[in-house]
């Protein structure tokens, strides 16, 4: 809670400045990127021709075996983190199951947070050496890029537009966008929601995707997905559309909500890091590789997402040539 919208005005200004400076804003169609269309027109343009200039699933290949925890190679970014004594993880605090504040303990926890803790485990040998920094959805790219956090694990879709500004780890989770409506709604999928208000967090690919739906629902942006659920419960919006797992977390909190339709997008989640230290991306990929093989990934899935059925095989790692 309490990321206030006072900050939004500032955030907006910053985003404009960034756009003017020709660097990245956060929402996926990046202003000033090679996508030819103007920022306002990018969403429909993208709908016609999604950015396929790269394979977003392909990350940097790990270089050799993992170093021993507590013995990071000198001069590497991991050694810098080790010197600092904690890994700074950028995430949200209201995405149930992935990264949300446990109302009982006050701690932020979930699948994404555990991904971060596993990196801390690999660096320090202690998963607790982690500092959680809650960042707004539309700050995920810039926070990783400017180094204000070491790594972002926040239900973040790896796509080519974002790859231009940050490095992604190999894919650690495959999600797809669906839609949440009220229990008595007759809508079977997002295509039945033409002209209805559909909420998503600003700066998320989900919000862009709502704009691409042919039935033309009205996208409504909120600062975070928790705010979307508040708006939904207050009848300000008719539906919420985002990744299936996030929606499942919301439906679990509201017995008058249901998730409908098949996934209509592919949202491969990756952790975002600065491009200034490719060795760190390689290190993170090595950690993921190890955890896919030794069952840690499956255990983490069961811990947070086990209610949705048996753990699937972890997404296979793909690397750039």
């Amino acid at each position, binding site marked *: 809670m309490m990321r206030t*919208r006072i900050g939004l005005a500032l955030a907006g200004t910053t985003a404009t400045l960034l756009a003017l400076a020709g660097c990245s804003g956060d929402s996926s169609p990046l202003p000033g990127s090679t996508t030819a269309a103007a920022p306002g027109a990018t969403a429909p343009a993208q709908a016609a021709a999604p950015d396929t200039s790269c394979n977003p699933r392909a990350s940097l290949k790990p270089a050799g075996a993992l170093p021993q925890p507590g013995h990071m190679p000198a001069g590497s970014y991991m050694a810098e983190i080790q010197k600092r004594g*904690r890994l*700074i993880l950028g995430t949200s605090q209201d995405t149930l199951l992935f990264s949300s504040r446990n*109302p009982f303990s*006050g701690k932020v926890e979930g699948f994404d947070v555990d991904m971060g803790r596993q990196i801390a485990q690999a660096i320090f040998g202690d998963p607790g050496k982690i500092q959680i920094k809650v960042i707004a959805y539309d*700050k995920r790219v810039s926070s990783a890029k400017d180094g204000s956090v070491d790594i972002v694990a926040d239900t973040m879709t790896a796509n080519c537009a974002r790859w231009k500004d940050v490095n992604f780890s190999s894919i650690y989770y495959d999600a797809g966008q669906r839609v949440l409506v009220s229990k008595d709604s007759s809508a079977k999928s997002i295509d039945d929601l033409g002209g209805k208000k559909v909420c998503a967090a600003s700066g998320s690919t989900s919000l862009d995707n709502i704009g691409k739906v042919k039935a033309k629902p009205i996208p409504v942006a909120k600062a975070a997905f928790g705010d979307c659920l508040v708006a939904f419960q207050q009848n300000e919006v008719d539906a919420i559309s985002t990744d299936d797992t996030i929606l499942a977390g919301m439906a679990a*909190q509201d017995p008058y909500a249901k998730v409908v339709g098949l996934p209509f997008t592919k949202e491969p989640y990756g952790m975002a890091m600065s491009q200034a230290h490719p060795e760190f991306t390689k290190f993170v990929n090595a950690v993921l590789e190890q955890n896919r093989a030794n069952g840690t990934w499956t255990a983490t899935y069961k811990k947070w997402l086990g209610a949705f059925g048996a753990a699937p095989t972890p997404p296979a790692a793909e690397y750039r040539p």
Partner: protein
Amino acid sequence: MSTALVARPAPGAQVAAGPAGVTPAPRRRGLFRRVGNLRHTSPGRLELILGALITLGVLAGLLAGITGAATSSGTSDLGDRAQPLLVEAETIYSALADADTTAAQAFLAGGLEPAALTQRYNDDLERATTAISAASRLTTDGSEGAASVRTLSNGVARYSALVATARADNRQGLPVGSSYLSAASDLNRQTLLPQAQNLFRVAQQGVHDGYRNAASIVWAALLVLLIFVLAGALLLAQRYLSRTTHRTFNVPLVAATVLTVVLAIGTVFLLGSQNNHLDQADSAGSTPVAQLAEARILALRERGDEALTLAAHGSGSQYTTDFTDASGQLTKALGNEYFSDDLRGKHQAYLAAHEKVSSLDSGGDYDGAVGLAIGAPTSQTFEAVTAGIGSALDERKAAFTAEIGAAGRGLGLLAVLGPIAALAICVLAGMGIRARLREYR
């Protein structure tokens, strides 16, 4: 075409044709001449003097009534409406700011809301709603203040509904509760607090205007001037009488003069004392009340910013900036003569504790930072600051009430006794001069 229009003579023709248009002039000239001619005979002169004295007396009586009523109602309006509105506005602000901070702290604590914080939040909300309904009685319909009060009373209802939902969710372990709390906090900080601040500003202007109305400087000056003119006229009349009638004293006129002097002394004393007390009420009452109230607002802003910085979990730089801004202003405000060094020391102690909280937070020890921020020692240090400001504020409110009470004393008397005294002066003047007039019959 109507006959009325035809019958009406052209404006130009009227002067030439209509004798009716000419007659008033000679009549007026006749009246003036007759009044003017009075000065050529002794009884005529006496009649003129009597007429002048009675006119002055009646005017003085009228003005005494008006001035007494205006200063008295202005003073009581200041004490009963303008100043209480200022106090209510400050109460609304501090109660809402404290509710927001309390909610944020309860959130930081995690788990079930601590009972003490729930109690404090409930008290805050009760104080706010009571003050809002009191403020609505103190603002006039359609004024800017009334608009703020309306926004506030609607907003508080929405605010408490959002917080109630947040609590219910929290009780069931639903994380969406924190989003409700966030929505409530946004409503509070972005709509309610600015409106309360606006009401405070309107009330300050009201107090400022209240002092002007209470002093009713134009009426008071006219009254004093007229009483002196009346006294002068009485003295001149007596000098004339003693020269023309060879009687040294005219007892009724002497009595009228004495009464006028008493009225003059009484009026000057009452108005002077009122002004003196109004000055006191301003310099020792409402001015420091406004300054002290602002200090309390700043202190609550600091504490709220601290809790929100932590609750934002690393994305709250705007609160950090706001904290620095508020604490800079507060340090300056605490320089006020009505604050003790002890209080300034306590504020420094709180700032030191906050410094530690920030360094723990930025050093990665989030739990330590939260523990220190909402722990008993820091809470007690901070509460000592607000309690110190509160007691200084109460002292100043009491000083204001006392001074306004003193300022209003006797003004009602002026409104009643002033006209009566003036009437008595007229009667005495009439008696004194009519006795001389009778000698000419």
